[in-house]
C-alpha cells in the first residue's frame, strides 16, 4: 500500500495521541504568544483605564466551578488592572456557587500585590481598597437596591464586617460611585444587569462570557448596552496582554501568571494540529484519487 494510502487509512489512535501531546505539552511548557486584543476587549480595557479616579470597578462573579477555567482568568485580569491603577474594587456574586471563586480570586491577587508592596499605599487592604459583599438574594433586590444604597443591600460583607463601618463604603454609596459593573457569567445574568442597572440607572455594564454564550451577546455589544466584552479564553488572554502592557507602562516589574494566555498556547497548537490533519488528509485524498484515475 502506498504511503498516501496508508496515511488515508491511518489508525485513529495516532491522531488521538498527537492531539493529546499537542494539548498537554503547551500546558507544561507554554510558548509565548502575544494575543492582540479585539475591539470589544480593547473598549472594555480602555473604559476601565480612563474612568475617573473616584469611580469604582465592580465585578460580579457569576460563574460556577465547571466553567472556571474559561472565566476565572478574566476575573484575575480585571483585579490586576484595577489594583495596578489604584482603583477601588467591589466584588459580589449573584450565583451562590461563585462565592468561593470570588474569594479565591481576590485572595490570590491581594497576596500577589502585598508580596511586592513596600509601603502602606502599595498594599491592598480589605475594607480600604476593596470590599467583597458576597452573595444575597433575590437578584432584582440587589440590582435595584444598589442604585439607592449598597449598604442596605449588603449590611454585612462576606467576612462578617458591617459595611457601614468600612472606609471604602464612604466613597461607594450606590451606582453613582461605580464607573462600571463587569459581570462574568456562563448564564444570562449579564442581561439582567443590562435590564436593571443599565436601563434604569444608566450604569455602564461590561461582560465576560464563555465562547459559546458570547455569540448571543453581540447584539447588546453593538447597541452599546455592553461597554465591552471578553469572549472565552481568548478574550481572557487578550485582556491579560493589555494588563501586562499596562504593568510595563507603570513600571511594575513583577511577572504575572497568565492562565488564559497559557491555555491559548494549547488551544492554538490544537487548532494548528487539526488544520494540518485536514491539509494532509486532503493531499492524500487527491493523490490517491489521481492515481486511481
Amino acid at each position, binding site marked *: 500500500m502506498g504511503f498516501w494510502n496508508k496515511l488515508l487509512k491511518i489508525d485513529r489512535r495516532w491522531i488521538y495521541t498527537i492531539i493529546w501531546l499537542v494539548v498537554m505539552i503547551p500546558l507544561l511548557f507554554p510558548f509565548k504568544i502575544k494575543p492582540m486584543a479585539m475591539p470589544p476587549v480593547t473598549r472594555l480595557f480602555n473604559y476601565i483605564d480612563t474612568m475617573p479616579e473616584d469611580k469604582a470597578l465592580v465585578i460580579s462573579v457569576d460563574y460556577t466551578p465547571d466553567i472556571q477555567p474559561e472565566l476565572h482568568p478574566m476575573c484575575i485580569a480585571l483585579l490586576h488592572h484595577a489594583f495596578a491603577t489604584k482603583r477601588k474594587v467591589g466584588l459580589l456574586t449573584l450565583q451562590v456557587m461563585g462565592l468561593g471563586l470570588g474569594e479565591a480570586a481576590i485572595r490570590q491577587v491581594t497576596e500577589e500585590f502585598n508580596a511586592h508592596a513596600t509601603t502602606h499605599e502599595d498594599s491592598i487592604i480589605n475594607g480600604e481598597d476593596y470590599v467583597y459583599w458576597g452573595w444575597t438574594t433575590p437578584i432584582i433586590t440587589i440590582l*435595584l*437596591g444598589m*442604585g*439607592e444604597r449598597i449598604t442596605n443591600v449588603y449590611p454585612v460583607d462576606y467576612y462578617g464586617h458591617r459595611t457601614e463601618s468600612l472606609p471604602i463604603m464612604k466613597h461607594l454609596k450606590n451606582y453613582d460611585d461605580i464607573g462600571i459593573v463587569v459581570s462574568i457569567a456562563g448564564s444570562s445574568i449579564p442581561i439582567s444587569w443590562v435590564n436593571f442597572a443599565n*436601563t*434604569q440607572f444608566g450604569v455602564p455594564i461590561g461582560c465576560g462570557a464563555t465562547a459559546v454564550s458570547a455569540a448571543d451577546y453581540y447584539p447588546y455589544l453593538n447597541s452599546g448596552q455592553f461597554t465591552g466584552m471578553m469572549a472565552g479564553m481568548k478574550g481572557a488572554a487578550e485582556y491579560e496582554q493589555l494588563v501586562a502592557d499596562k504593568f510595563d507602562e507603570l513600571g511594575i516589574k513583577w511577572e504575572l501568571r497568565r492562565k488564559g494566555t497559557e491555555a491559548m498556547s494549547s488551544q492554538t497548537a490544537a487548532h494548528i494540529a487539526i488544520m494540518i490533519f485536514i491539509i494532509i488528509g486532503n493531499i492524500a485524498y487527491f493523490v490517491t484519487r489521481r492515481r486511481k484515475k
Partner: protein
Amino acid sequence: MTLSLSLIFLLSSLSPPTDVIARDKPNDSGGAILLTWTRSSDTTVVSYRVLRQTEGKATWDTVGLAGRLANRFTDDEVQDGIRYRYQILTVSETETAESAPSEYTVCSPQWFNFDRMPAVIGTIIFTCLIVFFIGRAKRNIKLFIRRIAGLDAVEEALGRATEMGRGILYVPGLSSIDDVATIASMNILGEVAKKTAKFGTPLIVPLRDPIVYTVAREVVKESYTAAGRADAFNQDMVFYVTDQQFAFAAAVDGIMVREKPATNFFIGMFWAESLILAETGATTGAIQIAGTDAVSQLPFFITACDYTLIGEELYAASAYLSREPLLLGAIKGQDYSKLLILVLIVVSTILALTANLPVQNIF
C-alpha cells in the same frame, strides 16, 4: 438674607414625578397593576420608590423600587377586586419628594391575551393551508415531494445490515416525549421496525427517557405485529439505559463497539454527545443516518454521518417513507406556509429599506 435662603431652599427642592397612572395590567391572569409616570426633571434623583395604599386604609406601603431612568413599574402583589392607588417617591441623596396619588384602580384577569394575536392568526392561516392540501390529497391529486437522500438510503441501509447478518442500532435522541423531534423519531422508528421485522434483522433501541421507552416499546411491538412477525418481537430489543447524558453516550458507544451494528440511526434531539456517538459509530464501519432539529449539532452529524436529515426533513420523514396522501398533504401545506413567510420577509425588507423614500407616503 431670609428671602434668599428661602429662595435657595425652593430652588434646591426635589421635583416629584408627575402623571402617575395606575391601571390593570393587560393580557394577564390578574393580580398585577401597571404603573407609569413622567420622570422628575431633577438630575440629583437616585431612584424612585413605589408606594401603595389600599382603599379604606390610611397607611402607604412601600412595594418596590425603580431606577432613576425608569418610568414604569409592575406591582404583582395585589389581589383582584380590591381598589388600590399609588404614589411615586423621588429619592435623592438628601431628600425625597412625593408625587400626587394616582386614581384608584382594580385588577382582574383577562379572558384573552391580545399580545398573542399574531401567533393565533399565523396558526389559523397555517392550519387552513394544511387542511386545503390534505383535502387535495384526499381527492387523489398527486403531490410532489423532492428527493431526500437520507430517507432513500434507509431501505438500502437495512438491506445491507440483513446481508451482513448484523443488527440495526436506532437511537431516538435524548429528549422527552413532549419534544416534537422525539415524536417524529417514533414515527420513523415504526417504519424502520416494520422493515426489520420483514427482513428479520436484529434491532437495538437504547433509550434515555423512561416515558419514551414505554412509547418506543409499544411502537416496535405494533410494527412487528403489523408486519405479521409478532413472534419475532423481543422485549429486550427496546431498553432503558440511564437518564444521564454522558452515561447514555458511553453506554451507546459500548453497544456500537461490542455489537457492531451495520447501520446506525441517530434520529431525534441531541446535544453535546452527538459527535461522541457519530464518530464512534464511524469507527465501527457502520452506515450512519442522522436526523435532528438541533441546529448546533447538525455540523457534527454532517461531518461524521453518511446521510443527515436537516431540521424539517426529520418531520417530513414519516410522510416520505409511508407515502400516505394525508401526510404528504400536510407537508405541502407546510411548504406553502414557508413560501408565505418568505414573501413577507422580502416585502418587509423592501419596505424597511425604502422607509425614508417619498413613495412610502402613499401608505
